[in-house]
């Protein structure tokens, strides 16, 4: 036992060292640089300078506005949807599920390009509106465009979290309220929503952070007066020495941490560990005819909006010319051939980086889950806390931190670490670790310790128990963690843009961005986007199947 314990301590220390080097130190470097005065001392001068630049103040206000508006609009879409499906007799469950996943399978910036053609100044919708009513809507101009694109992309976070929270509410509360005469809006406002608030806040804070940090969408929409684009532009065009870029990073970090901490204060970590609360499911009510019409209409409308970027992207990839017209012209498959001709490497790179990163993630996730849940190692919670830091860390900040920290570090063979593909694997692995860890923790909580005790009673050592009993029982969760890490890494753009030092290293997400930078490249870019969406959608489907199969399997085992 003690030999096993010291081995576990070594593993725990190794993991901690890895997290410190590739997570804590880079972030520390960024924060340090924001306060360094260039002569070895510390100063607030850069923050003062930041505050004196009106562009920076404006960017700050814009970022807050966009993130806040996105949360508000996303709530407007997600709250009714969640309430409808969880509390009413409703045939659209499959539709809602699709709604919850569809936007997430496409990076927001990819959708932005397609939405420009559909909803932009001379997009299909505005051309039609102008022809029929003589009006146009500035849906995609400036900050509106960012809010619109991000809302459609991120509302599922609220939908999914809120649905889960609604499912967890003890039905007796609602029944009591109903017995006391509360109905409809009053019931929702006074009882249901306050009870579901932790779930809602978890989703809303996640949306806020994601939007606050997003780099690709504003750039594709030509919006630069926001914080994340400013940090990127500062660091890429003025150079890694520019302190203002780091000040922006510190602000991004502060807001992310504050939003997360605020939400967690409500959720109290219990939901995070996904311990199911049981309880009886709330009774479903019946919709009146006009309510049903309204509900289906709402869902249909949202679905149409959510599908529009996908549809737009598909059209872009299959037609040669789309200019000042409602629909594109000149059908062609050429764009796909161009992609396979020029950019097969990028597809391979995505598989390599994201696959390796996901492997690292599940390995670390399984180990950390085991150490935290099954050992009494002192300070083991620290590992969990480190990983939590990764969740709140903007990709942009980590990317800048890597470039700064590992500048001049060489791999065996003389290649610079920051100019090699290894950096992608590391960055992706670190940022996706929380997802994998969440899956692994959930899987391990559901394995009863009695099984391990039984194995050990029969003479199996700790390692043998882990290998032969624990890991096989966790397989479903581990696989789900792998797929989640993989697909979210494949869709990542902020770090990717910073870390791509040359084209042959670029993964698909950067390739799409690159293609979108030329007129002849828009079609191939869209084609690459469609390929990415199909891959990610397949991965998502697969992970859902795995989780479902796993749940069924466990249920079977319990009976």
């Amino acid at each position, binding site marked *: 036992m003690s030999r096993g314990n010291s081995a576990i301590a070594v593993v725990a220390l190794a993991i901690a060292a890895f997290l410190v080097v590739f997570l804590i130190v880079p972030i520390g470097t960024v924060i340090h640089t924001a306060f360094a*005065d*260039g002569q070895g001392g510390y*100063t607030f*001068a*850069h923050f*003062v*300078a930041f505050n*004196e*630049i*009106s*562009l920076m103040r*404006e960017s700050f206000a814009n970022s807050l506005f966009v993130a806040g508006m996105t949360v508000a609009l996303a709530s407007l879409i997600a709250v009714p949807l969640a309430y409808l499906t969880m509390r009413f007799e409703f045939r659209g469950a499959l539709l809602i599920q699709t709604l919850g996943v569809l936007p997430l399978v496409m990076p927001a910036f990819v959708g932005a390009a397609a939405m420009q*053609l559909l909803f*932009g*100044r*001379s997009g299909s919708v505005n051309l039609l509106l102008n022809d029929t009513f003589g009006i146009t809507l500035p849906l995609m*101009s400036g900050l509106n465009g960012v809010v619109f694109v991000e809302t459609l992309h991120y509302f599922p976070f609220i939908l999914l979290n809120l649905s889960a929270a609604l499912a967890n509410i003890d039905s007796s509360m609602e029944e009591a309220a109903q017995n006391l005469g509360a109905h409809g809006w009053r019931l929702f406002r006074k009882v249901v929503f306050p009870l579901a608030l932790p779930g809602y806040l978890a989703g809303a804070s996640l949306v806020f952070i994601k939007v606050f940090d997003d780099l690709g969408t504003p750039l594709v929409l*030509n919006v*630069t*007066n926001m914080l994340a*684009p400013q940090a990127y532009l500062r660091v*890429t*065009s*003025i*150079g890694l*020495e*520019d*302190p*203002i870029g780091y000040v922006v990073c510190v602000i991004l970090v502060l807001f992310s941490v504050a939003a997360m901490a605020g939400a967690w204060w409500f959720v109290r970590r219990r939901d995070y560990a996904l311990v199911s609360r049981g309880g009886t499911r709330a009774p479903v009510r019946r919709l009146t005819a006009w309510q049903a019409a309204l509900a289906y209409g709402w869902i249909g409308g949202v679905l149409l909006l959510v599908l529009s970027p996908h549809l737009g992207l598909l059209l872009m990839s299959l037609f*040669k*010319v789309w*200019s*000042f*017209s409602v629909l594109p012209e*000149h059908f062609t498959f050429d764009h796909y051939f161009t992609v396979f001709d*020029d950019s097969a490497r990028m597809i391979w790179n995505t598989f*390599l980086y994201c*696959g*390796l990163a996901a492997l690292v993630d599940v390995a670390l996730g399984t180990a950390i889950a085991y150490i935290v849940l099954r050992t009494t190692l002192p300070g083991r919670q620290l590992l969990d806390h480190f990983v939590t830091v990764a969740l709140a860390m903007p990709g942009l900040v980590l990317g800048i931190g890597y470039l700064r920290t590992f*500048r*001049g570090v060489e*791999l065996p*063979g*003389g*290649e*610079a670490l920051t100019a*090699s*593909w290894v950096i992608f694997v590391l960055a992706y692995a670190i940022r996706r670790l929380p997802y994998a860890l969440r899956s692994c923790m959930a899987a391990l909580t559901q394995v009863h310790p009695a099984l391990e005790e039984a194995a050990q009673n029969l003479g199996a050592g700790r390692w043998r128990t882990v290998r032969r009993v624990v890991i096989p029982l966790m397989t479903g969760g581990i696989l789900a963690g792998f797929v989640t890490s993989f697909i979210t890494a494949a869709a990542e753009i902020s770090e990717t843009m910073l870390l791509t*030092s*040359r*084209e*042959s290293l670029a993964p698909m997400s950067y390739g799409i961005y*690159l*293609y979108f*930078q*030329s*007129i*002849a*490249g*828009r079609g191939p870019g869209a084609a690459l986007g469609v390929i990415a969406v199909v891959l990610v959608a397949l991965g998502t489907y697969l992970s859902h199947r795995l989780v479902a199969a796993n749940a069924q399997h466990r249920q079977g085992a319990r009976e």
Partner: protein
Amino acid sequence: MNRIARRTLFLALACLSCATLADTVTVVTSFPKELTAAYKKAYEAKYPNDKLEVLNKNTAAGIAYVREQPPGSRPEVFWVSAPDAFEVLSSGKLLTRIGIGDPALPQKIGNYPVNDPEGYYRGQALAGYGLMWNTRYLKANNLPEPKEWADLVKPVYFGHLAISSPSRSGTTHLTVETILQAEGWNRGWEQLLAICGNSAAITERSFGVPDGVSNGQFGIGLVIDFFGLAAKNSGMPVEFVYPSQTAIVPANIGLIEGARSPDAGRRFIDFTLSEEGQMLLLDPKISRLPVLPSVYAKAPAGYPNPFTGKIQAKVNFDSNLSESRYYVVLSLFDQMITFRHKELVATQKEIHEAEKRLGGRPNAQLAEAKRLALLPAIDEKQAADRKLLELFKANKADAAASQAKAKVEEEWAAKIKANYTRAAELAKSAR
């Protein structure tokens, strides 16, 4: 599982080793993927032992990148449109002298040297700046086709133009300098401010303009010729013209000092300048103007040929002047236009409306509004001030300098904002 892991590891190692074995030419460029892909394919076919690596960065980011690499591990080739970027590099001792090339070839286009007279960089293609428009957009909005920069200040084009910010695009910086040098500092800014006040957007990259024009978001854009020509040749409903006050300047290529494999870099540069390399420019998706006059004989009919004198370049572009005030012009443009675009547009709108209301009657109040709205934050003398120029070139990590610079910029911003507000008020109340 084990086999897959082993194979992955093997492939990973193979990737690592192939990067170190062959000669790799790393090219820092702002050019689009079609162009780099064509050159990569052709070059690697001709020199199978070399590998071409592309680092796609916009001009400013490219300079910053080269600057930050230690000597000995820098990329080999720098290849962008803006000649002033090369001036910035060579004054930072970041370029290797490669000579002026074949003396029998034309050494000048208009009054502009094709190759750097000191031999630090060479012209690889020629580029002129011009106007690109979407024919469908113009027809739908009943807009006349523009011919000159000056046409764009007309009220009829309000809200239909697009231009990108020079701080994000080297090519736009050249357009801006061209206008400033052609019209003079004050009149140049006047024209620029009026054009930008008519613009629907100041885009993030130079590419945002041709992209927006070709998909019909904007009517007319200020673009470098190949953006317009390539869009037209790929079937988009767009047209392109060179206005008479344009500068034809070379898009340059240079060898970076302290590169990993300078010989291979040299080989690639020679390839791009050979007839074979120059022919690639004629691809409809690329549509650039070669520097080798002989190549035009093989170009499709109607391909613009700057050597026949058909594209008039009336401006004698002074690249020393351009380089000396490079950072000041960038910052001035951003403070007055990019970051204050909303106010600028609102002011121009008031002015256009007042003009319409007055129906051409002279009005002192409106004249004052126009003067204020189109006044640069500093005059030519202030912009040439040595202390100011030094401040903008100072080391960015120097906290004091960066604070001083931020203060200057803030002064400009405050002044401009006050001017716009006052001009809008004056125009609004002009009767």
